[in-house]
């Protein structure tokens, strides 16, 4: 019989102490990833650190231009409570699993698993989010694009827990889209988030399921930012030339590092990303122009 220590702290300080004392215990929130792995015999944790009783993790709030979302906020809550502030994140949350999964699974859990296919990750990258992590000693924030360090590996220290995520509120159009023969209860073939930030002139991207980690298409972002600034397009709101959209899409596709697997071929993923990028930019820029009228 395998012995597993089950830890169930009732508060955030207790949780951090438990983490420090049991660095091998696997943190678990909704259990939609961890318990599946345990049940399949792929994960044999010596301990489980259940964060489900930590009320502090379940809240969210606005602070200046940002929203701080507690790590324990569920996908369902993102959909129902935050779609105005964080539209792309709400859209991504809507594509996760099925209603029971969305009622249990959390934003912090998605980050803890750090799967390259995690649905929220491309949005966090595109929005320039920061992940707030803490130990019993100190608290720090990690930019989303530094948080994912390898396939299913993140920047969390052995004594740290994810406490929340700071996400800039949408100041412009955003989108999240994915492709596949089936789009419910799947691991995406590939996905793309795009966020336009007219206030800062920035463009944010995030690519899912097409590399060892969720990726930003930095060259694509820089290209489009440069183009929009150079032409004064943010102000003029003129339509984008097709060549610009195509170039952006090409750069997004090149930024990916996909592989062949059961869900899709390398070639299909690159192609699909190009299509998603072109469409996303079309939708977002159109929304931006429409909103201004």
């Amino acid at each position, binding site marked *: 019989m*395998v012995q597993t220590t089950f830890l169930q702290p009732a508060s955030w300080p207790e949780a951090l102490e438990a983490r420090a004392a049991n660095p091998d215990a696997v943190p678990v929130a909704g259990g939609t990833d961890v318990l599946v792995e345990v049940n399949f015999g792929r994960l044999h944790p010596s301990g489980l650190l259940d964060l489900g009783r930590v009320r502090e993790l379940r809240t969210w709030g606005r602070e200046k231009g940002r929203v701080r979302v507690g790590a324990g906020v569920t996908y369902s809550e993102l959909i129902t409570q935050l779609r105005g502030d964080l539209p792309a994140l709400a859209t991504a949350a809507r594509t996760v699993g099925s209603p029971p999964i969305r009622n249990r699974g959390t934003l912090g859990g998605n980050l803890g698993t750090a799967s390259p296919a995690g649905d929220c990750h491309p949005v966090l990258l595109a929005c320039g989010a920061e992940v707030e992590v803490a130990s019993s000693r100190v608290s720090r924030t990690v930019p989303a694009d530094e948080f994912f360090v390898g396939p299913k590996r993140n920047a969390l220290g052995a004594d740290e827990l994810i406490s929340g995520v700071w996400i800039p509120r949408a100041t412009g159009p955003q989108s999240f889209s994915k492709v596949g*023969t*089936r*789009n*419910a209860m799947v*691991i995406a073939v590939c996905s793309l988030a795009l966020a336009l930030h007219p206030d800062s002139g920035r463009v944010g991207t995030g690519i899912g399921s097409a590399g060892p980690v969720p990726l930003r298409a930095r060259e694509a972002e820089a290209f489009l930012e440069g183009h929009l600034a150079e032409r004064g397009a943010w102000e003029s709101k003129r339509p984008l030339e097709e060549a610009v959209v195509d170039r952006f899409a090409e750069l997004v596709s090149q930024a990916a590092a996909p592989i062949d697997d*059961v*869900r899709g071929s390398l*070639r*299909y993923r690159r192609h699909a990303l190009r299509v998603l990028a072109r469409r996303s930019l079309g939708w977002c820029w159109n929304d931006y122009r429409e909103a201004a009228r």
Partner: protein
Amino acid sequence: MTVDPSRTDDLAVVGTRRPKIDAMARLTGEARYADDLSMPGMLVGRQLRSIHAHARIRSVDTSRAEALPGVVAVITGRDVPIAYGVLPVSQDENALAVDRVRYVGEPVAAVAAVDEETAEQALRLVSVDYEPLPAVLSIEDALDPSGVLIHGEGQGANVHKAVALEFGDVDAGFAAADLVREDVFSFAGNTHAPLEQPATLAALGGDGRLTVWSATQAPHYLHRALARVLELPSSRIRVVAPPVGGGFGAKTDILPHEVAAAKLAMVTGRPVKITLTREEVFHSHRGRHPVQMWVRTGFTSDGRITAMHFRSLLDGGAYGSFGVASTYYTGALQTTTYRIPAYRFEGLRVFTTKPPCGPKRGHGTPQPRFAVERHLDRAAEELGLDPVELRLRNAVEPFSRTVNHLRITSCGMRACIEEVVSASGYHGKKGHLPRGRGVGFAVSAYLSGAGLPIYWNDMPQSEVHIKVDRGGGVTVFSGATDIGQGSTSTLATIVAEILGLQPEDLAMVTADTDLTPVDLGSYSSRVTFMAGNAAIDAASKLARLVAEGAAQRLGVPPEELVFRGGQVAVRGDPRKSLSWAQAVRAASARGALMTSGVYWAPEMAGPYRGSGVGISPAYSYSAAVVEVATDPETGEVSVEEVWIAHDIGRAINPVLVQGQVEGSVYMAVGEALMEEQSFRRQGVHRGPSLLDYKLPTTLETPKIHTILIEEPDPEGPFGAKEAGQGPLLPVIPAVAAAVEDALGVVVHEVPITPDRLLRALRAGHRGKAPVIGPASVPSFEFGEPERVQPPVGSPAEVAVP
């Protein structure tokens, strides 16, 4: 008294929309499926499965597993050495591999332990010394003369079954044709994915008898196989099928875990339950064969078929299963929809080192139906004819004989075609929708029960008993298994109609070899037709007994009585009546109230080997129009709307028929667009989970318009025919046709994945033929066909000049 099951009016419960009688039990979790069963002292059984696609077993060492505390027994192939198989001609499988494994996931040993974790741990302590052999993963590999032999026997190479038949003069038919067309097609293998994972609980009673509760569609065949493998008389074994959570053919074969659980119960003397994990269900399989097909057809310039030559090559996987029947089925039903005056069929099934294929909804007929329907669309293009018109010109006539000796009785195909074409607005849409949207059309036919049992015998194919207690309670006993399709409700409705009662009034005892008479099982869409007719027979006999008692009391001849609304009344004088309970009391005074009914299919088999496959007392017909929206950039296809007409003869309960039609459409959409059993180079399944093996969800399920065509069949119970399988058949080719209409590609292969669709579109952009499908089929020398004289009155006699 009068009972006329062919009457078409004045029915009280038959034809009314009502929930299944067990709907609440199933919805609330009260229904106890096999895995819900538990007994004191029960052990958990688990199976160790092969990690090789093909290997010799040098030795199996179970000593460390046996030494583990909590382990009660470990068995291997030596403990169950007798080979078995559902078909008498294919006794080629062992519950636990004896000296060789032939697919990844084949059971090698089984353990019984006090709990699941201990059983799992014990599996890891069994060491198997394998000598790996080359994997054989395709038809081409299997036929390679220099390759390895999987069974070391058969008709050469890895041929499991090769058949060549010719009915009528095919060469003359081609010579008379104005157009002769050839096409090749490919249909990927896919699996059933029933929601309930198979489970079996076995226990020895204090009397030494063995009881096996198993999620099976065919308790009778399991009963026979267990007696053989366990070397027990049938009388010492009781097989019970609890409510089954979906079958689709997955639970028709004898599955290794059923034998293993029974053997472990005998070895340990304790109850043992084995429930397959979802991953194991993909290894257990017995699903749709991958089939490569070649078809050549001659047409006159006005579109009449002069001859057809159809060739199919089936990748059978490691064992026989139902494969011989599957092979024949790929050639049998082409003639049930179209008048074909001369027909040649060549079929081949090979062994490969993959999980065994077997029957899945439509058994062996969706693949050729896909090929034939697409082939006719191609011919229609070439002849400049409308695809619907081409079908109508060749439509089979009701009450006729086909060239391959199938007896056609009622046939609502024309009505099905007219209804779906009109309801969908097909002609206004085909070729006229915006690029990316399209419509497709196809027709099909299917059996209402296989005409012969799986093993040769001349006993009835179905028996039903009815017993009445002295208070008027009616209990119906039937061997049929309710696998969710509602067979128990259907039988209750039939009996209730004849006795003037409500279906919910009856007690139903089903699928228990100790208690119920034999029904061959819930496969080949046979239960409504065959068990339904046996139920009519039993209920009519019972009504006669009750009428005789009541007639005496009422002072009228029994012929004057009618059964209606819980009353037995004098026809035309409803004041002169007895309640059902009073009538039963009167009849009971004359003797026991217990009757038996039987059903034998008429003798239909033609004068050739293999003629037992394809015959059926009646065929259902279907026609479908499918509308799709495609995304030419991502290759995604969405089935938006399906219009499907099904010739059911009569709907005993329209709700259940509609459920079967909608379920069939759902399954067809999956097979057309995403489902595929696919394997890595070493024979490892690519994604044995419901995450990676893509089935549609409700989100991918189209809007479905179901149209029921009710022209009662003269032999069907109240005129009814089948609904469980036929409606799947036209949808797959119709989806392919709709994708063609939407994008101008040629679709000769399923599933139509985004990757494949994009590749075809890219080829089109480069000026090549935009085709999804194979260029050729593997070659095989079938030799001279067996020539069979067509029956009197077949289309061969009125062959076009």
